[in-house]
């Protein structure tokens, strides 16, 4: 119980720090939002007027407090560019990025973990060297390249997918699955390669441990030692990597969203920064911070679940 109280207060403190940093960093950015909205040829009078309307003439501290107070009441402010409540703009974009991220994470786990085990099992054989080379490529090639190649393969060569228009889940489930699959796969490929290499290394490290020798001396087969003893120990550090990967994809990928013309958070972030849409940018960064914190918390919980040594300390 003390543990959760502690976690929760750390959660709060981190969020306040993050919000302060985002708010004041954006104050330092050059460019006046009112000017940008009205265009460069607007006269001073109009700009003043709009600034007043948007509350931009108040001191920074006051605006920060207004913003935070709003956030606590569920009011994230209004987007300067879209002239809509920020929450509405985000509500449109978050499901897109989140479903891509979930699909990418599922692909990473479902493909990465079995292949990691396979590579570790074949360690020392030719096939393992070959697989290692492939994973090395997977890590070093950027995801947008996979995006282009997948588009080429599926639309130009195979002619399976004809357009890359975004289809939402409520419109057409299979259409949505199709439009989500390739971007998720492009994001997942390098993550899969990372998980494979990481898991292989942790398995090989764990194999040298004394408890493995004990298990062998009980008469267990190599397979039983791997699945019954080594794997659980080897997966513990992989959880951390998975947490990092998931948090990263949940924030949206600017490049992949552009390649596949997806209306997600990544492209929104870029647009709102260039148009100095501060209320929107602030809320997005805050959202990403919350995601990272929630993921870290989940990773902690998983650790406690799987590792009895940590469970004890709680």
């Amino acid at each position, binding site marked *: 119980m003390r543990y959760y109280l502690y976690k929760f207060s750390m959660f709060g403190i981190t969020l306040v720090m993050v919000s302060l940093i985002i708010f004041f960093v954006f104050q330092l950015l050059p460019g006046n939002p009112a000017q940008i909205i009205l265009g460069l040829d607007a006269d001073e009078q109009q700009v003043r007027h709009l600034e007043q309307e948007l509350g931009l003439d108040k001191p920074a501290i006051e605006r920060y407090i207004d913003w935070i107070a709003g956030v606590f009441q569920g009011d994230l402010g209004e987007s300067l560019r879209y002239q809509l409540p920020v929450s509405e703009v985000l509500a449109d974009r978050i499901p897109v990025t989140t479903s891509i991220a979930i699909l990418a994470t599922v692909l990473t786990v479902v493909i990465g973990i079995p292949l990691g085990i396979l590579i570790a099992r074949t360690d020392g054989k030719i096939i393992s060297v070959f697989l290692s080379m492939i994973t090395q490529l997977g890590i070093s090639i950027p995801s947008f390249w996979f995006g282009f190649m997948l588009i080429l393969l599926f639309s130009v060569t195979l002619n399976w997918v004809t357009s890359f228009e975004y289809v939402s889940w409520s419109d057409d489930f299979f259409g949505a699955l199709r439009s989500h699959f390739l971007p998720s796969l492009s994001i997942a490929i390098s993550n899969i390669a990372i998980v494979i290499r990481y898991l292989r290394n942790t398995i090989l490290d764990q194999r040298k441990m004394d408890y493995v020798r004990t298990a062998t001396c009980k*008469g267990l087969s190599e397979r039983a030692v791997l699945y019954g003893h080594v794997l659980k120990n080897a997966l513990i550090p992989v959880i951390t990597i998975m947490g990092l990967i998931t948090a990263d994809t949940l924030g949206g990928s600017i490049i992949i969203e552009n390649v596949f013309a997806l209306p997600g958070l990544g492209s929104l972030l870029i647009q709102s920064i260039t148009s100095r849409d501060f209320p929107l940018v602030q809320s997005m960064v805050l959202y990403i911070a919350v995601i990272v914190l929630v993921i870290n918390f989940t990773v902690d919980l998983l650790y406690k679940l799987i590792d009895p040594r940590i469970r004890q300390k709680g």
Partner: protein
Amino acid sequence: MAPLLSVQALDVAFQLPEGEFLALENISFHIYPNEVVGIVGESGCGKSLTSQAIMGILPGVASIKHGNISFQGCSLNDLSSREWQELRGNELTMIFQEPMTSLNPVLTIGRQIAEVLKKHTSLSKIERKQQVIKTMNEVGLPRAEALWKAYPHQLSGGMRQRVSIAMALISRPKLMIADEPTTALDVTIQSQILDLFQTIKQNHSTSLLFISHDLGVIQAVCDQVIVMYAGRIVEQGKVEKLISEPKHPYTQSLIQSIPDATKRGQRLYTIPGTVPHLQERQVGCPFSNRCTYKLKQCETSFPDTYEFDDGHTVACHLFAKEGDGN
């Protein structure tokens, strides 16, 4: 009576980047049913390697070059991995030195002990648990029911070592190998564990190969002792005989370094010099550079083995009879 385990002229070599090195040379000994045999020698003498060769768990860079190990009359040299699995943990079991690391940190104690029965018997889950709890009580683990669900980090070193002993004992093995089972423990716990081995010896019809660098510990539990030095057996015999009438100068030094109440207050004797490393071993007797009785032939040839009454043997040039001349 036929021996349970026979090791005959065993050579084990390491394949290292610098070349091939013999780590064990011409190791021969027998273990009879119900007998407790000790192996003693300083660090690096090849005690663990001998036990690994018997269990078939030599490190990847080591292999048997020559000789034979047979268990219950059947050679272990070319067992299939399936046959090894049948044997290990069942008729042939092992206890390791490191109680901190030799148990799996993420599995419960109960599961780790019961696993042996799961592998080697057809008992039901409930029967397995009953058997485990019985064995846990037998090895002096109190409140076995509660410990069943505990994890290794919740136990003290002594208790973990009792868990290892329970794992090795539960299948009623023919031969248990214990590699320095008390070395990592503090003195009071050490003597409790030695007492436990005494009890096991009385209550079970199992043979025991007990490895230690401490002749005092060996004296407490063993019937027969093998003294090893730099990969060779230099002396072997009945424990009382070997301690009262040690032949080999190395055995004499080991005896001098046993801590003993009558010598309290004096500085403990330590043998000057160290065991030569694997790569530095040369022809001749490896102990010769530390030996106060060194003869000139000690540097050029390894001595033959000379036998005294009651199977007491020694490999030392001091015991060469006239006319043996080499």
